[in-house]
């Protein structure tokens, strides 16, 4: 094909340009879908409960990801500060994932269980009251705003469309019981979403105010789960190296 023809034919130019610029991405990304070791074999990873989904959506709505990554890299300094490096398997139900390479605040991939619910509630409202050197903005409305969960089933169905195994039929529910255990599977059943959401918020009391269901309840429920699904004590400390 002559240079002249490509330049004078916009359609061909567009197609060839797209092929040229996507070559790098295709070569780097597509093989990962076929390589067996990409997602590690590990127990414990499961999809989010309805309350945690709402919390995650608030996390994304407030732009937490602009300052906080959720990806601990396999470096000594990160291992010492944050804990075990993140696994691909740990974000396999994340759509979109929260990896990142830019941190203004600390990485949050293993923040679950590190602080009390009360700490999170106060810290979200006024970060500098607990961490004087923090540059995080205040989010005082989270603890005042009632949690809207009217569309929770729709949110779960959207995630289901991306391949997350939320169940609708009894057969799907039974399959989840087999894969994740009864306690987790219960929370993945879409028809019971509202009931499960309320039950978890009541039992967890994440915003330390038992009388009110706020956005803080959902966000803290999500934060307290981060990085806690895999029990690394069950694996040799080099076990995950064999997947690379």
């Amino acid at each position, binding site marked *: 094909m002559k240079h002249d023809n490509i330049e004078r034919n916009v359609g061909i130019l567009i197609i060839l340009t797209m092929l040229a610029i996507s070559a790098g991405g295709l070569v780097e990304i597509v093989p990962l879908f*076929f390589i067996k070791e990409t997602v590690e074999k590990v127990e414990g990873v499961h999809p989010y409960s309805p309350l945690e989904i709402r919390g995650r959506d608030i996390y994304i709505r407030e732009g937490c990801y602009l300052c906080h990554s959720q990806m601990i890299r396999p470096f000594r300094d990160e291992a010492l500060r944050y804990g075990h490096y993140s696994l691909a398997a740990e974000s396999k139900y994340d759509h979109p994932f929260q990896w990142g390479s830019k941190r203004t605040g600390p990485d949050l991939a293993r923040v679950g269980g590190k602080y009390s619910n009360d700490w999170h509630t106060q810290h979200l409202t006024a970060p500098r009251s607990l961490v004087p050197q923090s540059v995080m903005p205040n989010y005082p409305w989270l603890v005042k705003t009632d949690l809207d969960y009217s569309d929770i089933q729709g949110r779960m169905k959207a995630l289901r469309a991306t391949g997350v195994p939320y169940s609708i039929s009894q057969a799907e529910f039974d399959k989840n019981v087999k894969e994740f255990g009864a306690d987790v599977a219960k929370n993945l059943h879409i028809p019971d979403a509202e009931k499960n959401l309320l039950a978890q918020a009541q039992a967890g009391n994440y915003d330390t105010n038992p009388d009110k269901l706020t956005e803080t309840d959902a966000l803290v429920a999500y934060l307290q789960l981060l990085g806690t699904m895999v029990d690394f004590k069950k694996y040799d400390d080099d076990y995950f*190296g064999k997947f690379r």
Partner: protein
Amino acid sequence: MSQDNKKVTPQTTGHVWDDDLEELDNPLPRWWIWGFYITFAFAIVYWLFYPAWPVGSTYTKGVAGLNNVTYVATKVDGSQETKTTHWNMRSKLMVEMNQLKAEQKQYFDKVASKSFEEVAKDPELMQFVNSAGKTLFATNCAPCHQAGGQGKVKFSPNLTDDHWQYGGAYENIQTTIIAGRNGMMPSFKAILNDEELTQVSNYVLSLSGEPHNADAAKLGDAIFHGDKAGCYACHGVDAKGNPAIGSANLTDKIWLWPDVLGAKTPEAKLTEVKTLIYDGMNKGVMPLWSTRLQPEQIKLLTVYVHDSLGGGK
């Protein structure tokens, strides 16, 4: 331009616009071309040393033995094994962590084998405790207990004074760090009416010499030691608290949950105490650290809190 000086006849692509507008097609500089070829050679060498090309469901891992990583792995059962693999970041991290452990081993071994008191008496070892403890404290403890361990009223206890909610012996502090704590006080709003709340609050204030109404305090004394409210069951008949369950000593000047010292007027002090008894408190939660820190790190941190922060008993 240099080309003008050398009088080279420029080559063109043959495109001509507007009669005399031509597109030049000069050869690229030789140094650039060679640089380009060198990147090809570099890539081939790279493929020999590092994981590179996807092949079906796996990928090339470099030529075996050319760029291996050797490290010591610790298995679930605690045994160790030396392993060698192809180059990858996760195994490189194992090497780095092996080095770190080797550097600190002589100190951590001493911390693990000696008693708390022996560690605290060893000035050389305490240098290590201080520097490692400072880092561990800043990462894990300071968000609640603040940078110097001074704590925060209505949030976290002060670790630098000589008062210990759950006991200040080494073993108590170690238990607290390992398993966490779950401090709470029930609400008395269904048990005591407003008058009784005022009376018992006055009694509580009287215990540490805060301004109070003596008549009300006398009636409050009876409520405190009576079976309806049963305050004495947790706080003790002498109101000095019980470290076994973390109930507060009400006779000293240390206040964690009601901000009595911060309240300026006697009315405000009374309100602080009354509100706490009315609402109760379920916020005294310290997370557990046994899942995050190694036993020897927890032991080191215990000595740091007990001796370096200066409040241990």
